């Protein structure tokens, strides 16, 4: 719970609002406890039969004035305290988003998107609940309780003690039952998650289910999941169903005791009927705040748990940051050098704990790509090709060795400058749900019409635009166009081209593009690549033969390095790869 102190800096910005809000709460609570007192005066005068019509009117008027004053202070209290809670939530949400934007890929691979979303929604809302209704409610509850306690003790000590000692018991019941409820509820929710996943997977894979006529078997599994969910839910209902009746019972017993004991005191002449009515009114007034206090306890627990999850993100240091003394790279030439670079596997599996450190994924990689030349990387799936090119723009940093651009270690370069120098066309294209134009122009601040036209021509995206109702203004995504894999890749190529980068990285970028188009794109790219450094990753020898140098990655190391012809003479992996492809072709002839 100590971690909630991390909220203080966020709240400090609004300390004036909070302070005034709390003052309003104190005054409002005090004022509100006066109305039972007015009631008592009226009842007492009534019971002795000494009252005048004019004083009845006066008491009625007093009640209205008290209610008005109370309402006014409650209005400001709520506006200030609840308003602040929303403002803090807003600040926290922005801080969280800013941190997401900075964090590195290892973070995102450890956390599911759904989970990260939940932190920005559910967890934030739990914290807001504490800061808003939590603070607001407990302020009202504590101040009202204190003021009423004083007034009650002033009237009659034994009766006051009954109320003051017994009423917090209802709070306690609420806390105890609430705690157990929450624990059970977590299980219910987990099972609900299982249920949802089952439905989602079944319907996503309905073709497979139908193809193997497994509908009945799936239904049986789903029914069993449901039965378990019902059992857990009923376990929860046993507790939650008891909560409110228990509260009502507890509060009712206090009221009954006040009637019994108070009645006897009235008969004994130690209490007036008006005072008994006053006590009764306090009981009504305090019952909601007492429950509220119990609720606040669970709010604190939930908020503390949520704060943990927020702090995990907010205090997480990005692995990749701009160096303190950053060397600018305003005019990159595009010369790439790797010196003894090594990258370890990220250890996610627990069985890796036997060895102190995970094994090398890439080991002792060194090469030099002169500015303006091209390098091709080939190797089996999982050989680390993508990891290797990701080192250039510091998607991650190597565990050994150095990566240099224009002779400078990338870790010393200004991060924004470095990334501006490189454009990637990744294996899987990510498109934002905006217009095609915005997607193409994503990487630049401003793009004129001619530049975009050029980029769409080079990427052959221009061929597709006619098909779309709004051309390049067409919206992409859920509420817009669904693009084919090839179209997506062409958008990615256009996006990369528009940046006019010194270094262009094509990571298996033509895999979803049909043969004809890919030939067309390659021709266009040849023009573009002139005078630019390029790295091309491909699965097949045919795509890479024209590169200035070819590197074959095998078992995390450079197995072969040279031009197409040099590698053919080596008679190693590359030759085998070419031979396999040839053989495949011959067999079919």
């Amino acid at each position, binding site marked *: 719970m100590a971690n909630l102190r991390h909220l203080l800096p966020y709240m400090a910005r609004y300390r004036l609002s909070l302070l005034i809000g709390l003052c309003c709460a104190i005054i409002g609570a005090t004022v509100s406890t006066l109305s039972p007192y007015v009631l008592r005066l009226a009842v007492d005068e009534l019971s002795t039969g000494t009252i005048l019509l004019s004083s009845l009117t006066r008491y009625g008027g007093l009640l209205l004035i008290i209610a008005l004053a109370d309402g006014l202070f409650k209005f400001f209290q709520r506006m200030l305290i609840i308003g602040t809670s929303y403002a803090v939530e807003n600040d926290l949400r922005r801080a969280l988003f*800013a941190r997401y934007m900075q964090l590195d890929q290892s973070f995102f691979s450890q956390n599911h*998107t759904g989970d990260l979303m939940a932190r920005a929604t559910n967890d934030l809302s739990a914290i807001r609940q504490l800061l808003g209704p939590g603070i607001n409610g407990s302020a009202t509850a504590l101040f009202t309780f204190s003021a009423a306690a004083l007034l009650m003790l002033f009237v009659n000590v034994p009766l006051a003690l009954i109320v003051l000692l017994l009423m917090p018991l209802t709070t306690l019941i609420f806390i105890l039952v609430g705690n157990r409820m929450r624990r059970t509820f977590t299980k219910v929710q987990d099972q609900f998650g299982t249920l*949802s996943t089952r439905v989602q997977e079944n319907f996503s894979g309905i073709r497979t289910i139908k193809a193997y006529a497994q509908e009945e*078997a799936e239904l049986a599994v789903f029914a069993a999941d449901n039965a378990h969910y019902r059992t857990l839910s009923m376990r929860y209902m046993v507790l939650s169903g008891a909560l409110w009746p228990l509260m009502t019972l507890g509060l009712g017993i206090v009221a009954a005791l006040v009637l019994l004991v108070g009645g006897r005191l009235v008969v004994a002449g130690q209490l007036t*009927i008006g005072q008994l009515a006053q006590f009764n009114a306090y009981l009504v007034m305090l019952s909601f705040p007492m429950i509220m206090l119990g609720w606040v306890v669970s709010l604190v627990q939930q908020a503390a748990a949520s704060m943990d999850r927020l702090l995990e993100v907010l205090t997480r240091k990005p692995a990749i940051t701009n160096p303190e003394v950053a060397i600018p790279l305003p005019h990159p030439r595009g010369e790439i050098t790797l010196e003894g670079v090594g990258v370890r596997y990220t250890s996610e599996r627990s069985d890796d704990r036997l060895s102190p450190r995970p094994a090398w994924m890439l080991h002792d990689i060194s090469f030099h790509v002169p500015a303006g030349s091209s390098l091709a990387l080939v190797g089996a799936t999982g050989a680390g090709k993508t990891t290797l090119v990701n080192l250039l723009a510091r998607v991650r940093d190597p565990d050994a060795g150095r990566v240099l651009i224009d002779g400078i270690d990338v870790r010393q370069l200004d991060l924004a400058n470095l990334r501006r120098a490189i454009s990637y066309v990744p294996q899987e294209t990510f498109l934002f749900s905006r217009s095609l134009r915005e997607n193409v122009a994503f990487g630049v601040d401003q793009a004129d019409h001619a530049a975009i036209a050029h980029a769409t021509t080079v990427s052959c995206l221009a061929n597709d635009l006619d098909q779309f109702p709004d051309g390049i203004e067409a919206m992409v995504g859920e509420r817009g166009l669904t693009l084919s894999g090839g179209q997506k890749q062409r958008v990615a190529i256009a996006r990369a081209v528009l940046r006019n980068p010194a270094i262009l990285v094509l990571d298996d970028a033509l895999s979803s593009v049909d043969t004809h188009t890919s030939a067309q794109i390659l021709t266009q790219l040849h023009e573009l690549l002139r005078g630019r450094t390029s790295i091309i990753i491909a699965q097949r020898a045919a795509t890479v033969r024209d590169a200035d140098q070819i590197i074959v990655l095998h078992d995390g190391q450079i197995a072969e390095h040279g031009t197409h012809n040099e590698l053919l003479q080596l008679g190693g992996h590359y030759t085998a790869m070419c031979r396999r492809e040839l053989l495949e072709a011959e067999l079919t002839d």
Partner: protein
Amino acid sequence: MSRGSSQRFDDDVVMGKAYDGRLLRRMAPFVAPYGRRLGLAIALLIGAALSEIIPPLLVQRAIDGPIQSGELNGLWGIFALYAGALLTTFTLRYSHSYLINSIGQSVMMDLRIYLFRHIQQLSLSFHDRNPVGRLLTRITNDVDALNEFLTSGMLLILADLVTLIGIILVMFLLNWRLALISLAIMPILALIVTIYQRVMRATYRLIRQRLAMINAYLNEQISGVLVTQLFGREAPSQDYFANMSADYLQANMRSVLYFAIFMPTVQLMAAIATAALLWGGGVGVLGGWASLGMLIAFVQYTQRAFEPIRNLAERYTILQAAMASAERIVGVIDTQAEIRDPDEPVTLPTPVRGTIELRDVVFGYDPHEPVLKGITLTIPAGQAVAIVGATGAGKSSLVGLLARFYDPQEGVITLDGIDIRHLRQRDLRRHIASVPQDPICFSGTIATNIRLHSTEIGDAQMRKAAETVNAATFIERLPGGYGYEVRERGANLSLGQRQLLAFARALAFNPEVLLILDEATSSVDTATEALIQEALARMLRGRTSIVIAHRLSTIRHVDRIVVLDKGRVVEDGSHDELLARQGFYSRLYRLQFAAQQVEG
């Protein structure tokens, strides 16, 4: 579990009617089996509502009786009654709550299973049209909304009504003049609540919309964070997000304002009612037509009468949400499966041999635009056939028809001479298995991914299937082997591994006829590709198989090639024959397959 993806479809919560008899009648059969328990639950609830009205009455009795007359003994009796009323209320409330929730849970379970079964048997054309998220919402959120309706909507309105009428009755019985005074404020209160509710509904809608926008943006930005970072767009993204967040804040502040006005106003109404009672009651006490105890009891009753009226807004929303959900659920239930089992199914002659025949088959997803325009084809048992053709030639539609995912508009498809429409779907698919294009994986173990949840496939059969398709090697290397936990969508397996697993699945079910959609994936490395090829060859051996071939190498393993063009069979024969013919196939071959030699 990520619920984020399903939330997006919740935007379609359109608030409409709070009561629709037609919809309720449609839902009634699901509640009917629990009718008697429901009746008991209602009785318990009414009892609880009534017993809750008793305490203020006892306060009146105590003050006007023993307390004012000084008879201490009478006080004990009232106290005992008071405690009895409290315990009765507790017992009735608690047992009602337990009972109604157990009914609700049972109804939900029945409804979920019914919907699951129904949606599962709907045709693929339905599944093609409806995103999974939307269907998930029907089974989860919409069913929940109906449960809310049952457990806290409908019945609690009834209870509120009973409470309100009970209080009014008691008040009139005690003192009609005081009753009129305290009830005078109620219509005004109801008016305030109605206005507040109307204003808040619009505000909540705005809040929901803005939250949905934040969620959608957040989801997209987290998924594409690397792109944003590599292209250096963090700052614009943050600005954009800050604007969205500010809009959301503003909408919330509006709701805070309304609530901050509403609450004190209600309090003020209560104060007015109390003041009026004090004044009127005072006059009554002085005039002798009211007592002190009555005055105090009336103050308490008035406060209690406020509650049902205040609840009105909340209950109304529950009803509306339930009606909207019921509407959507009924919509799903009313959707008929286009592919249905015949009333009198025919059984296949055993043993099934696997002869396939198509006669003049015409089919289009849209009947006006046929994809297949009269296909006649006979495939003898045991023959492996490759279907080739340009994109859009109708190859995948052909497979869809053979597995009876769709029915042709014209023509007949037979298996061993029997029209497949005369067979039960599960009987047909026990003998015709199709391996989908995208190798689907489910969360579960490797074993459940191979045999799904079928109880008919033993361990030996499963292992044998895995061995035959070259999957056993990688499976045995995984921690836990066949017990290895596969994550959702097979996220912890490579594409090649998923492909092999899909093959193993097809073989484990040991069908007489295999339909394979074979997708050339350049993302699979050459070595894995070789494994897949070998597996494919073994699967085709001695089995009627129809392969939609995209891979050059696949064509090598088949006995016969059928060329489709624009929905018609244009050529039919062996690879060499067709090449020699110098027709469509030889052109297609040069364009589509020979290119793989260069490009991959």
